[in-house]
Structure formats: structure tokens, C-alpha cells
């Protein structure tokens, strides 16, 4: 399956991916309307230190620990894509406790959210990849582990 990979060598740390992610998942038609003057709650985050930066989003693990750990049955695999049914999330944060990548984060109401590859929003493909100015985020199929 195609997944999102990041090449830390090329990441500029510009955080554009976070904005594109938040906009793509806002359901709104206009980026200004969606984001201007508001705190954003993206599903991808820039991490790093003074020497490197890179973007982290869900790895869509083959055997996802979040799925087995979710106490609400809210996280499941749909084919290879790990999805969350946010209507079932009770904000217990067990998924935060177990994800080795720090890929799940709460929204403004504490409801957990995660990257679902933009497959079901208006973007239709990962908005972080599409908008990365230095092509540091890549959407492709790579050899299974």
C-alpha cells in the first residue's frame, strides 16, 4: 500500500504540511475561512531539534498497537488504512500512551484524530505531500518490513 514517508534531509521545517492537513480535514472550501486566526489541530506534526526537522504522521503499521489498545473499539484497520471512528472516542488517551510514533493527537475537544491519508476528504490524496514545497514528504509504496 502507498504510505506517507518523510525524508528528513529535505524537510525545511516550514510547517506548511500542518496547515495543509488542518485545511484538508476541515471540510471547509476556503483555507482562510478554515484556518485564519484559529489554533490548528493537524494530524501531522513537525518534530526535530536544532539540526533536523521532519514531519510525523500515522505509519499505518501492519500490526497497529493503537487498534489493539483502544478501549472504545474506535480504531480499526480498513484494508491497510488505520482509521478512527471519532464518534466512539471517549478521550481516554490510551492510544497516546501506546503509539511509538506519537502519531495520534487530540482535536480542540480532546477527541483523538489521526492521519487517514486524506482518502475520504476533498483532497483525495495526502494534502501534506501535495503541498510540501521541497518534496520532503513522499506518498508511495515501499517494501514491506
Amino acid at each position, binding site marked *: 500500500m502507498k504510505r506517507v514517508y518523510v525524508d528528513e534531509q529535505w524537510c525545511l521545517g516550514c510547517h506548511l504540511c500542518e496547515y495543509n492537513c488542518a485545511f484538508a480535514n476541515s471540510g471547509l472550501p476556503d483555507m482562510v475561512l478554515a484556518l485564519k486566526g484559529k489554533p490548528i489541530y493537524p494530524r501531522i506534526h513537525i518534530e526535530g531539534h536544532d539540526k533536523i526537522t521532519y514531519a510525523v504522521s500515522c505509519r499505518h503499521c501492519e500490526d497497529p498497537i493503537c487498534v489493539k*489498545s483502544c478501549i472504545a473499539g474506535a480504531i480499526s484497520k480498513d484494508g491497510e488504512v488505520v482509521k478512527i471512528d471519532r464518534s466512539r472516542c471517549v478521550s481516554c488517551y490510551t492510544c497516546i500512551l501506546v503509539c511509538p510514533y506519537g502519531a495520534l493527537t487530540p482535536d480542540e475537544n480532546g477527541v483523538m484524530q489521526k492521519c487517514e491519508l486524506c482518502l475520504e476528504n476533498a483532497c483525495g490524496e495526502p494534502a501534506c505531500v501535495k503541498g510540501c514545497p521541497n518534496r520532503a514528504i513522499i506518498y508511495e509504496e515501499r517494501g514491506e518490513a
Partner: protein
Amino acid sequence: MKKYVIAGNGAAAANCIEGIRSIDSDGSITVISEEKHEAYCRPLISYYLENKTVPENMGYRKDGFYQRMKAAVLYGQKAVHIHKDKKTVGLDNGEILPYDALCLAVGSSPFIPKMEGLDNVSRKHTFMTLDDALSLEQDVDENTKVLIIGAGLIGLKCAEGISGRTKSITVCDLADRILSSILDAECASMMQRHLEKHGMRFLLGDSVSRFDKDTAIMKSGTIVDFDVLVLAVGVRPNTALLKEIGGEVNRGMLVNSSMETSIEGIYAAGDCTESEDLSSGTGKVLAILPNAAFQGFVAGVNMAGGNAVFDKAIPMNSIGFFGLHAMTAGTYAGKMYEEKNDRSIKRLYTEDDRLKGFVLIGCDERAGIYTSMIREQTPLSSVDFELMKKNATTAAFSRKTRTEKFGRTV
């Protein structure tokens, strides 16, 4: 065609079914479900009382799970005896089920200590099942005075669950602090203050001496009048089925890393078992849903002739009350690193070049990175631990490790 029998119908059982079906699509699966419900998310019963979920949304798996998995469920039945030589399970209705592989996923039961006068208490509840929550709901309204015995995870989640339904909740515990199984005095006190702000009253280091009808006379002499009593002292693994046929049982059923008990063909998973805690190297009953899920799946795979191992059990909890979360994992052994202020406490415990455990209250960002370091026994010398201490971040790993984590399918 292989015959699989699963005693129990909770998270461990559901994952066991999935484990079996990942290997064997034809064998017959029979699930013995004492509760008359499809597998549901047991930890959600307090959230139900809190109006954060509804029974229709509490199913552990999507509708049609058993049909998709071609599993038959016997509702309202209980396994009462195993004949290990004949390989049969006897049910309480007299029915006998033959098996090739059996999984005991029978959970635990509330422990009710002997207390003088308990029989004469008019309305008493335990808090373990959906039916417990539904019956507690019937007994509680805004004028109900509730006394909860036990300030552990179950008692306090129950308290939070009903806090919007009644004004008077008193929680007592023999221990001198709340959440004593996961928090020390200082951490417990921070959580306690937060709960007290939400109207809960605590009687700690105290226990019921006797009940006089609906009045509790505490050892300290304190008198507590109540309308409803909730018994949340603790739970005990249900081990009798295995014990009476000579299977190895300590506090919980003993299993190997394939989830097989000491009796061939009989597997066990979930709250009825004891696990080897990787962080301390000791046997513990780790009655948490993730553990049940990991174990259940591995049991299922092995029952069907596959080859799966689970050897990364550690205690871990994420428990939140009114928006303040306490995350804990592993063992509090070795050297402690601490950061704290009025609103948060972070403690990391390290020993022998490993992260052994942590407590994070009000600072949970990317906590799973710490948890994975405990589970994977990552050498601290292989990471920038100075950076990692401040923030759980994969940036503290070497570039090579990061490339492995982020550059390929994991």
C-alpha cells in the same frame, strides 16, 4: 475441521476469534458468553453513566462481527467444568462441548471482603459489567448519597461516571491515597485535589468497621449515611476452571508466551491470566484491555496452528478524570528524573541503561514513545536521553533508527 471453544466473550475472546480466523477460515468457533451481550467495551461503562457513549456505540466490534467470523455464541451460558482428557467443556445447562483447542478468557470478578452488616444494606452494587452500570443508573438520582468503597481505577471511574447524576459522592479506601496501585503519595494527591474540585469527598486510610443498615461506621469513627453503596475494592481473576483440573495457577492462570496454559490444548487470555511484566521481570495480573487484546489474538493464532508470541507485557494505564490525565507505565525502579509544576508531574525511572517506567500527569504528549522504549528495552545510550527527558520525541533516536521507523513499512 478443527473445533475451537472460547469461554468468555470480552476483548480477549474477540481478539482470539480474529486470531483463529487469521489462520483458519473453516474451523468451528463456539463462544460461551455468560453475559447476554455481544462483546462490548467494558471500560466504557463509566463513560455510559457520564453520557459520553450509548450502549449501541459500546460494541467492541462492528455489527455482524460473529457472522463475519462464523462464530456461534451461546449467550447466558457459563463454562463450569473442563474434562482435559476427553477435551470437553461442560456448561451450566448440562451441555457438553468438545474442543480441539480451548481458550479461557473468563475475566475476573469483583472481590467483596467480609463486612459486618453488608447483607442488610438496601442498595449495593459492584461495577464491572454493563448490567452493573445499568442497574446502578436506576438507583442514582440527584438526591442520592453514594458511598464508594475503593479509590482505585474502578471506584474512581465509577465516581466520575455518576458525578453528573448526583451531588453526594464519598469514596473511602484502606490505602492512605487514591489510585494506590499506580500512584505514589505526591502524584495521588495532585489527582485527589482535582477530583475534590469536582465535588468528591474522600475518606482515606479508613475502612468500614460495620454497616448499620444504610449507615457505614468507619474504623476512624466517622459515620457515613448513604443511599447507594458501590463495592469497588478490587477484582480477582477467575481461575477455578483451570485450577480444578490441575492447571498451573498463581494469582492468575499461568501461560507461556504462546498463551498456552500448563495443560496442552488449553489457552488463556485476558484478566484471568498472569503475565510476566517485562519491566520488572515479575509475574503480575495485568488486567488492562490492551493486554487482553494482545493475548487473545496470540492465543487464537496458536490455537489454529500458527506461530505467534506475546512477551512484551507491561503494566500501563491512561486514566483521565474531568480532563486531567494520568499516564503510567512499567515499574518505578531505579533513578528518578522529575519535572513538576502546579498542573503537571513528569517522572521517568531509569536503571541499567533502560527506561523502566514513568508517571505523566497532565503532560501526555507522545507518551507512547516512552512506552515503546520500555517495551522494546531500548538502551538509553543509543538515544539522546537529555533531549528525550524533556520531550518524548523520535528526534532523540539516531538517524539510522529514525530511518528504520519512518522510511519503511512498519
